[in-house]
């Protein structure tokens, strides 16, 4: 009995510590986003803002007037909103294409007997471990030759490459759980392999496909190395790249508040996705790597 109480107390303490550890940095950038430029320039090491202001949000999103009466700098919001559009566009297209290709491949791996199956899985494993930076030089060169440098497809193609392994694993694991008798029943009823795939399996596999899509989206939304190497203007620069290059007018006094605000804005979609689909994300992350 005593050890049970101890375990329970330990779990409760652990629970609180985990929440604090995971959420404190998020709370910190939220707090920082409400600190005015004057406050951070003077140095403000206390956690909460002394004089909360919406100025940073007005500047970053390009709306309204600042509390000091000036209009927000339009260059800041133009660049940020353009980067946000690039990030969404590139991540969504890469996710869509990657998941379609991975679905086809995972179906074949989970269901069909064909030569080279092990080779495909080995390639996927190798790609998952590939040092992305190694590609920066040759890709930089190749993309300039093919006029893909500083374009959306120039990022979408490598994002597909590096998300395919995770998508293939996740989907293969999901596809193995599907009741295959239904496919056989369809085939007995005269459907071809392809028809059985399209009409019976796709609806059953939809939840798995959706999970793979979330994980793929997270990767593309987060990617940084290629985003700074294969783009040169705001025309195709994504949010992580834009944030890292944004130093403001005074390099010795970075715009803490604006950077924190932009960080909060790009974290909101992640928090929404996590809140809605946490169960699916956990299932997807663990299914690929550990058999269950």
């Amino acid at each position, binding site marked *: 009995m005593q050890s049970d109480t101890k375990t329970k107390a330990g779990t409760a303490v652990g629970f609180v510590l985990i929440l604090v550890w995971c959420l404190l*940095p998020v709370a*910190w950038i939220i707090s920082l986003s409400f600190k005015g430029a004057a406050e951070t320039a003077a140095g*403000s090491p206390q956690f909460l803002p002394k004089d909360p202001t919406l100025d940073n949000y007005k500047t970053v999103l390009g709306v309204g007037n600042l509390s000091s009466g000036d209009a927000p700098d339009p260059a800041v919001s133009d660049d940020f909103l353009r980067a946000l559009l690039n990030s969404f566009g590139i991540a969504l297209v890469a996710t869509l294409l990657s998941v379609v290709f991975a679905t086809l491949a995972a179906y*074949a791996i989970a269901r069909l007997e064909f030569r080279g199956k092990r080779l495909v*899985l080995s390639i996927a494993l190798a790609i998952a471990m590939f040092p992305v930076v190694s*590609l920066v030089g040759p890709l930089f060169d190749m993309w300039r030759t093919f006029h893909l440098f500083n374009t959306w497809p120039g990022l979408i193609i490598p994002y597909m490459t590096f998300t395919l392994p995770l998508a*293939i694993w996740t989907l293969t694991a999901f596809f193995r759980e599907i009741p295959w008798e239904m496919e056989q029943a369809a085939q007995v009823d005269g459907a071809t392999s392809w028809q059985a795939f399209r009409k019976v399996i796709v609806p059953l596999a939809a939840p798995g496909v959706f999970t793979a899509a979330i994980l793929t989206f997270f990767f593309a939304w987060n990617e940084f190395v290629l985003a700074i190497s294969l783009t040169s203007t705001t025309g195709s620069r994504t949010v992580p790249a834009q944030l*890292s290059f944004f130093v403001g007018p005074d390099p010795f006094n970075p715009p803490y508040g604006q950077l924190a605000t932009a*960080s909060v804005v790009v974290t909101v979609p*992640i928090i929404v996705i996590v809140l809605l689909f946490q169960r699916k994300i956990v299932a997807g992350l663990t299914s690929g790597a550990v058999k269950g």
Partner: protein
Amino acid sequence: MSATAVPTGKTTARTSDRAAGENRLGLKLVAPAVVVMLIVTAWPMIQALYLSLFQYRLTAPDEKEFVGLANYASVLGDSLFWQDTFNTLLIMVVTVAVELVIGFVFAMVMHRVIFARGVIRTAILIPYGIITVVSAFAWQFTFSLSNGWVNSWFAWLPGISSDTNWFGDHWPAMFAIMVSEIWKTTPFMSLLLLAGLSQVSEDMIEAAKVDGATWWQRLWKVILPNMRAAIMVAVLFRALDAFRIFDNIFVMTRGAQDTESSSFLTYRQVIEQFQLGLGSALSVLLFLSVLLLAFSIVKLFRVDLAQARGEG
């Protein structure tokens, strides 16, 4: 469906025609994925191998000149390369070791918690989903001399005062970088460990308890050995991921105070210095290091790769 259906789906009596058709369909279905995976990796790596044999600057493309292995010689003879390799390995070893411990504690708590499971899952997934650059900024501002709260909160610790400049010296800067890396990637580790933990049979733990094993003994003799495979896969993935560390260093120090990593050095040579020949040599070396590292971890810890590949 009907109880007579064969669950494995492997029909033994299959005409060779049907098998050939299945083989063709299989290849057709995996082809697009394989092509996309190789087009951006295999071909550029061959390109890098070729370019690494030349003295080639993008700013002076006409002076491209074959130099054999000279680029490799100058890289391997440079102390900066070794300093960066050491930094990278150190970050890898420390972060993976710390994450293994914290991640296991996370997994234990998540496994035991019976209330508010959704809350803890959400909390853990936020660092996982957050952009690494954002994590780097959050921690950079946390450790910032003028605007960070670390100095005021932890001034009671020896060595920390209100004017501790975390990014002014090698070790404190490395520490800050590692904290950000650990914060961002522990969730991934803990979820893999949680999956392993849930596979350990409760009966076995209960039996050990009845036999009088202490909590510590149960942990080391029953729980950990039974989730070995999950631990090894988690270590393999996280170690290789940590070895490629780039984003945190780029944002937090830009490599100042000798905090540069191998990935950062390669990036800097290619994109900032336009040294495509030398940079390609670094790319090839980085690729070989990852290969060697993956091979060593798999051999050293006898990781079950079939499991890592998702083959049941």
